[in-house]
């Protein structure tokens, strides 16, 4: 059986908010190490990778791997019933037909439990290679959110290029063009999470659809900083760390610049 008790139940809401625009259903995988989820959007352009490690829970028990297929839209609805300070406990059997969510108020004066039906989801899993990045950019997550929003007011594709000097975001639309350059700011006056850091081994640039980046920024409340990892000609990873818990990561396939070329197909 599986049982996990999370003191900051609000965190679960935030995690769900960070994925509900991208997927409508997903398999949460319970394993002795923790709770995880991997899912792609319907057009297979982006991938979500969530990990909530067992250590982050107040109590965690999982005897064997259990896939928990849930409808995300319904789950969000259900979690709306939990107060923001509530303690959340998730429970299910080894081969669950239902998953139980238990919400306890902070002062222990109200307990509610909800049961949700599970579903069998035949999803495709991808092996995300254990990768080293040629460029890693860490910046305040709110700033990244603002930047993506501003960019999408102008165009729908953003070109990101990372050099030693900084990160340049540029876009073009019907009304004109926009460029935003973010420079590393190592000033000692700033707190860690207010700093922008750029580490590169070689300059990288690629184009991405803003529509997806904008949905990724729904994870902003989870973390004060966001980290972008890039490798030439490979998907970008956008990571939001969840303190003491794990992460929400998004992978996004780049736009292919050469449109004459049909691109590789794999069977």
């Amino acid at each position: 059986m599986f049982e996990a008790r999370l003191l900051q139940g609000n965190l679960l809401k935030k995690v769900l908010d960070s994925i509900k625009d991208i997927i409508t259903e997903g398999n949460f995988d319970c394993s002795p190490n923790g709770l995880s989820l991997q899912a792609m959007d319907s057009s297979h352009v982006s991938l979500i990778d969530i990990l909530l490690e067992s250590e982050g829970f107040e109590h965690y028990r999982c005897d064997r791997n259990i896939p928990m297929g849930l409808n995300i839209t319904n789950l969000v609805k259900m979690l709306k019933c939990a107060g923001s300070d509530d303690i959340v406990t998730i429970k299910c059997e080894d081969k669950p037909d239902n998953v139980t969510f238990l919400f306890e108020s902070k002062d222990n004066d109200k307990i509610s439990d909800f049961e949700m039906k599970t579903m069998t989801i035949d999803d495709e899993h991808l092996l995300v290679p254990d990768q080293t990045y040629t460029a890693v950019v860490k910046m305040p997550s709110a700033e990244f959110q603002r930047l993506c929003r501003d960019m999408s007011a102008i165009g729908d594709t953003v070109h990101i290029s990372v050099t030693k000097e900084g990160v340049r975001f540029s876009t073009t639309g019907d009304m004109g063009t926009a460029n935003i350059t973010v420079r590393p700011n190592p000033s000692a006056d700033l707190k860690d999470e207010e700093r922008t850091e750029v580490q590169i081994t070689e300059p990288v640039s690629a184009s991405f659809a803003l529509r997806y980046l904008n949905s990724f920024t729904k994870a902003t409340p989870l973390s004060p900083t966001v980290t972008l990892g890039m490798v030439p000609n490979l998907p970008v990873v956008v990571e939001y760390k969840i303190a003491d818990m794990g992460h929400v990561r998004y992978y996004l396939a780049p736009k292919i610049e050469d449109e004459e070329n049909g691109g590789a197909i794999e069977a």
Partner: protein
Amino acid sequence: MGIKNLKKLISDHAPGAFKDMPLDAYFSRIVAIDASMHIYQFMAVVGRSGEDQLTNEHGEVTSHLQGMMHRTSRLLQAGIKPVYVFDGKPPEMKSGELSKRRAAREQAVEKLKEAKESGDAAAVEKYSKRDLKVTKEHNEECKRLLRLMGVPVIEAPCEAEAQCAELCKHGLVYSVATEDMDCLCFGTTRQSRHMMAPASQKKDVQEFQIDKVLEGMDITMDQFIDICILCGCDYCGTIRGIGPKKSFDLIKKHKCIEKVLENIDLTKNKVPENFDYEQVRRLFKAPEITPATECSPFKWTAPDEEGLIAFMVDEKSFNLERIQSVIKKVKASKSKSTQGRLDSFFSAAPRKPAAGLSLGGKKGANKAGAFGKSTGVTKTKKSGGIRLG
């Protein structure tokens, strides 16, 4: 017209072999489309009421163009890269089927006359549908339209389905879009039905994978072809008293048509005169096609605006604004087609071979793999590149 009741047979014995997917899921995939089959469909469906087809002011039929233009633009908007394959000459084997169809058409004309005299509107609709004929001109017009839209067109030496299958087998296309199930007999690895369904129907694409069909039915490809021949295909008659279910059971038991024929009561199950199954097998296995290696690479180009307007508006009297809006949509779809797919960068996690029943186990195994990976990323630190975190 495909194999009789094959869909049902597959869903009975290999339920894991097909799944419904949203059209979105095909984006940036190259898909071969059996053009001839679809043109016929357009003629039968698009803009029809009673006996009348969609025509322009000169009385020329335009259903096929209307259908082809809008459905193609829908595919392009979904980011799909279509390749249209047209029929060449019909194979000799099909002559029996074709003469049958001709007879059916003549009969339909008779019935149509009767229905018109008696004023039965439903019957008029029914029989006039059967009197449809796709002429060479219709095909040529569609090709011209597609080329103007910047979509690649291939002319098969013989059956379009066979050519589609060849492209699919060699990985030049991801899947074959046709409603006819016999494309699976030609060796198509992945078939997509309802891909050209109108947007208004909101139908999901139904995708079949031959390896899963064979796995689920637990037969070989040769046996699958034999079952299809027994079920009834376009190329020869069927044995009396043997339907899809019986065909499946017989082949499972006796492994091939030769043995089946030895073991059935030939007086009860009468074998038709033209039952040349060996020839049909040959046709399925080695059809007349242009080898994939000789096909020139597909190219999707920007639509020829002036050309399209000249053809569709000036010649075919389509509404100028409508054509312009289609052109706009096709142009806009170009930016979408440059988006890469994640699964072309990352490989799929290994699946357990057993399809269908053992879902629970399979899931667990998969998950463990993916999970191990993600923790791996967090933990390991190597020199060289930069790690996250």
